[in-house]
């Protein structure tokens, strides 16, 4: 009997594997499942880490002794710029995103992320963008203005080569990946949790990742906007940062640090999530102060956006304004301290088992607390002035970033290694790596605080002997090599463990979270049946849960219809509301990323026609991608449902696409608000701000265009409202009319742009308006294309009262487009007009 049951279970799992597995051979390149994509993100990130580390070794070799000429000044500038760029953009964020993409579905008890093809697109954008950035180093034309690319140093006057272009285009490309991961993680965490996993029962790691993902959604757009503006200035001569045309180089600093400071927390939060996950496991008790930690995470997510000017204390901002940022910088220490006390309290109250991951957690606590303390010192304006641009700042940021991110990351790697390999790491071998890294790190960077206090500026390629910096630099360099040996030992240890590691038992660390209910090494569908949870610690509450899952006692145990299925659940209660049919392996993400890479390369080579053609190809591929979606028969067939199952998401009005669209628009809106910020900033702060004598754009044309847009949105809105009420008569005609009226609006908008007297190469005023108008035209154009597609699909029966999903998803985009149109008219035309009236 038992044998028969085992056999049927085996057959069922084979069926699931057949649906969820990657294609063999080269077909693995089209994998979209979160396990493969997450692991690829992490593996690629580690390779970039080695490149960044190699660059650091070259920097320390050069600085080991005074007056050395191993590396010349120009190359040294490329080295430190690329070291920072690679570590921040190509290692830290992607590797943590990869970890989150790998872990989140397993922790929340589902089989995949909610938009799998978006995961794959993100990965390929990351790889292609990273390779483009790195290629500049091989060609010896790498950017050399520092990883934050301050203008005017990075502008065409002072950086005439293509280095800055590689950075601006390549990093923007990589950021597509970050934002797509951010959107995907937010929607997945909120809408695909296991039945019963209400918001207050969510693993603490998910709160951290939710905050991180939302911070990516809001934090990256300012830099994307800044990069677009700087590239437009460099390539097309438009004025944004050049004072002679009414621009201001400080605008770049604002846009960069609006991203750059939250970025520190984007890196820290997931790492802190690893700490909050591991400490209770090794302390053998629940985390002390779950509510307090959630509160700290939410607070940190917000306050970290109010710190950006503390990177700009020396640029001449009024003292009172500096004080606001100084206070905010100190306030952010409070939620950090809450977490540290909660971790210490958990350890204090627990019965700590000291495994290899814990060694790295202890290292984290020591190093990160030191970095936090120097952070509070730097939040004090007078001290900040003293040590600005010295090695003290370099030491501080490494203590925060390496302490706050790398130590927990390695702890996490060791902790979750059995998941991937099915084998346990060795404490005996692993501790060598830890102590070499820990010792080397502190030797390198603790001493660097002193070098900085003694006045050594950062980014100098050499220094004179006898300034008191010699022995400190020598010891720092020795320390960096010890640290590098530590990294090598860790890598060797991990490789050896795949061969010699002890076989891991089920849930080898005695953890409480669902990812340990999965057989090891991990399979492609995670759970043989979808688990139900009733508490915050499912494996501690129900030790037999893995067995029950594996026997298929829960939902979606079969894959009879050959589709990848997961549950859609309520964001608050975790109750199941629908079934999601996920797309399977696809070449489309890779092709889209490939076309975008061609756009990027063509722009670098200034072959603009090729860039335009490649962009059109990318758009076509994306449209093809969107075609097999929602109500398309390949995703969802009418009349096929099992009556016992919840409805398929394409038959609901609250599917994941709507959430994805809303989160995307939040990100898009942040980019737009950053543009508005730039407009008002230049208007009030640019030293030579100038306006043209007469309005460069016809207000009447704009108003007419806006009224047509309003009518189009009204028609679309009405059609969707009727659909929501179950009335789809004349739906495709209504959609065609909405698209047609919007087409007239778009034509009028283009006419307004073409007939305008804008001089974007002469005046920052006109340059910002040009960008705003192009932004509107792009949005209106996209809304028209999406609506026309909806009309076609309604005609083909993919959209209707039984399948109302897609028009509901597109509606927020229309409303957004209408909102930004009138906001643009008000902010860029009406307010300045009112201001200039005597």
């Amino acid at each position, binding site marked *: 009997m038992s044998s028969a049951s085992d056999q049927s279970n085996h057959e069922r799992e084979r069926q699931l594997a057949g649906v969820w597995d990657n294609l063999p051979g080269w077909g693995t390149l089209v994998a979209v499942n979160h396990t493969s994509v997450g692991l690829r993100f992490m593996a690629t990130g580690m390779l970039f880490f080695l490149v960044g580390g190699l660059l650091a070794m070259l920097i320390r070799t050069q600085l080991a002794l005074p007056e050395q000429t191993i590396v010349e000044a120009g190359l040294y500038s490329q080295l430190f710029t690329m070291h920072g760029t690679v570590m921040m953009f190509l290692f830290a964020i992607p590797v943590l995103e990869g970890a989150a993409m790998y872990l989140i579905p397993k922790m929340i008890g589902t089989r995949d992320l909610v938009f799998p093809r978006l995961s794959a697109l993100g990965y390929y954008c990351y790889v292609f963008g990273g390779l483009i950035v790195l290629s500049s180093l091989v060609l010896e034309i790498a950017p050399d203005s520092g990883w934050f690319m301050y203008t005017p140093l990075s502008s065409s006057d002072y950086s005439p080569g293509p280095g800055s272009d590689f950075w601006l285009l390549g990093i923007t490309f990589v950021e597509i990946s970050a934002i797509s991961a951010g959107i995907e993680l937010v929607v997945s965490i909120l809408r695909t949790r296991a039945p019963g996993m209400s*918001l*207050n029962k969510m693993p603490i790691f998910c709160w951290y990742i939710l905050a991180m993902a939302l911070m990516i959604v809001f934090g990256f757009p300012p830099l994307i906007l800044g990069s677009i503006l700087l590239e437009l200035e460099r390539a097309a001569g438009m004025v944004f940062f050049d004072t002679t045309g009414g621009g201001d180089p400080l605008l770049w600093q604002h846009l960069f640090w609006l991203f750059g400071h939250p970025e520190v927390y984007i890196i820290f939060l997931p790492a802190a999530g690893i700490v909050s996950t591991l400490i209770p496991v090794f302390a053998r008790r629940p985390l002390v102060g779950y*509510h307090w930690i959630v509160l700290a995470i*939410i607070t940190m997510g*917000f*306050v970290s956006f109010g710190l950006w000017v503390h990177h700009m204390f020396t640029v001449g901002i009024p003292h009172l304004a500096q004080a606001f940022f100084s206070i905010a910088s100190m306030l952010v220490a409070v939620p950090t301290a809450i977490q540290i006390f909660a971790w210490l309290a958990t350890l204090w109250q627990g019965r700590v088992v000291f495994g290899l991951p814990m060694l790295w957690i202890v290292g984290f606590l020591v190093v990160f607390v030191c970095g936090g303390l120097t952070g509070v010192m730097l939040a004090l304006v007078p001290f900040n002035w003293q040590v600005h641009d010295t090695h003290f700042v370099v030491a501080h940021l490494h203590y925060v970033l390496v302490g706050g991110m790398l130590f927990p990351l390695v702890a996490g790697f060791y902790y979750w290694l059995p998941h991937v390999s099915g084998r346990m790491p060795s404490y005996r071998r692993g501790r060598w790596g830890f102590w070499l890294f820990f010792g080397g790190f502190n030797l390198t960077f603790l001493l660097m605080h002193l070098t900085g206090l003694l006045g050594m500026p950062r980014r100098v390629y050499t220094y004179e002997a006898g300034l008191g910096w010699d022995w400190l630099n020598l010891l720092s360099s020795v320390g960096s090599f010890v640290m590098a040996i530590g990294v090598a030992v860790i890598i060797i240890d991990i490789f050896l463990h795949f061969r010699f590691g002890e076989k891991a038992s089920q849930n080898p660390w005695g953890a409480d979270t669902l990812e340990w209910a999965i057989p090891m090494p991990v399979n492609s569908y995670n759970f043989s049946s979808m688990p139900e949870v009733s508490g915050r610690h499912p494996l501690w509450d129900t030790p037999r849960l893995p067995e029950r899952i594996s026997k298929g006692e829960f939902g979606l145990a079969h894959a009879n219809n050959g589709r990848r299925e997961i549950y859609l659940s309520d964001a608050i*209660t975790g109750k199941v509301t629908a079934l999601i049919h996920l797309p399977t392996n696809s070449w489309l993400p890779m092709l889209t990323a490939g076309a975008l890479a061609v756009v990027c390369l063509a722009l670098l080579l200034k072959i603009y026609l090729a860039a335009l053609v490649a962009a059109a190809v990318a758009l076509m591929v994306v449209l093809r991608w969107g075609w097999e979606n929602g109500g398309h028969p390949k995703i969802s067939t009418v009349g096929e449902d099992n009556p016992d199952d919840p409805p398929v998401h394409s038959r609901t009005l609250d599917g994941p696409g709507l959430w994805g669209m809303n989160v995307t628009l939040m990100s898009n809106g942040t980019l737009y608000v950053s543009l508005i910020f730039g407009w008002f900033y230049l208007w*009030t702060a640019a030293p030579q701000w100038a306006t043209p004598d007469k309005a460069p754009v016809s207000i009447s044309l704009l108003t007419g265009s806006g009224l047509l847009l309003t009518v189009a949105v009204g028609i679309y809105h009405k059609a969707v409202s009727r659909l929501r009420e179950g009335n789809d008569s004349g739906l495709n005609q209504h959609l065609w009319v909405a698209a047609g009226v919007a087409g007239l609006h778009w034509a009028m908008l283009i006419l307004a742009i073409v007939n305008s007297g804008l001089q974007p190469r002469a005046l920052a005023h006109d340059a910002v308006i040009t960008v705003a108008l192009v932004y509107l035209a792009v949005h209106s154009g996209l809304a028209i294309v999406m609506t026309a597609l909806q009309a076609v699909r309604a005609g083909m029966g993919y959209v209707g009262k039984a399948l109302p999903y897609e028009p509901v998803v597109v509606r927020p985009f229309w409303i957004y487009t209408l909102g930004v149109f009138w906001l643009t008219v008000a902010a860029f035309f009406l307010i300045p007009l009112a201001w200039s009236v005597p």
Partner: protein
Amino acid sequence: MSTRRLAPIHLVLGLVIWSGWFVLLYGGLSVACEFAPPDTSQGARTWVNFLMIALAILLTGVLLYVSYRCSQWGLGSVPDPPGSPRAFIRKMALSVYLISAAGAFALAIPVMVLPPCV
């Protein structure tokens, strides 16, 4: 006392308001200093400082009041059971409003001593 459910937006609304306050302080200061800078000899006793302090007190009061309302929310005839998601949201919202009130006031402390446009 209300028996209505507290919407999840309250988990972050306090800090959204705090963020708006932060932007208003920084942006408003820049605009005031650009278009109507007070006399530097007045030190911190300027209309800009008084306005900011008044707004800070008002906002802190509002946030404290909302926090108090959260503490009373859902305590009607059928209270949310402890450990329920709604009880969690109420508890978190209350704390977030309290923190936001403290943060809103903390930001205004330097306004009491520093001149606005120097």
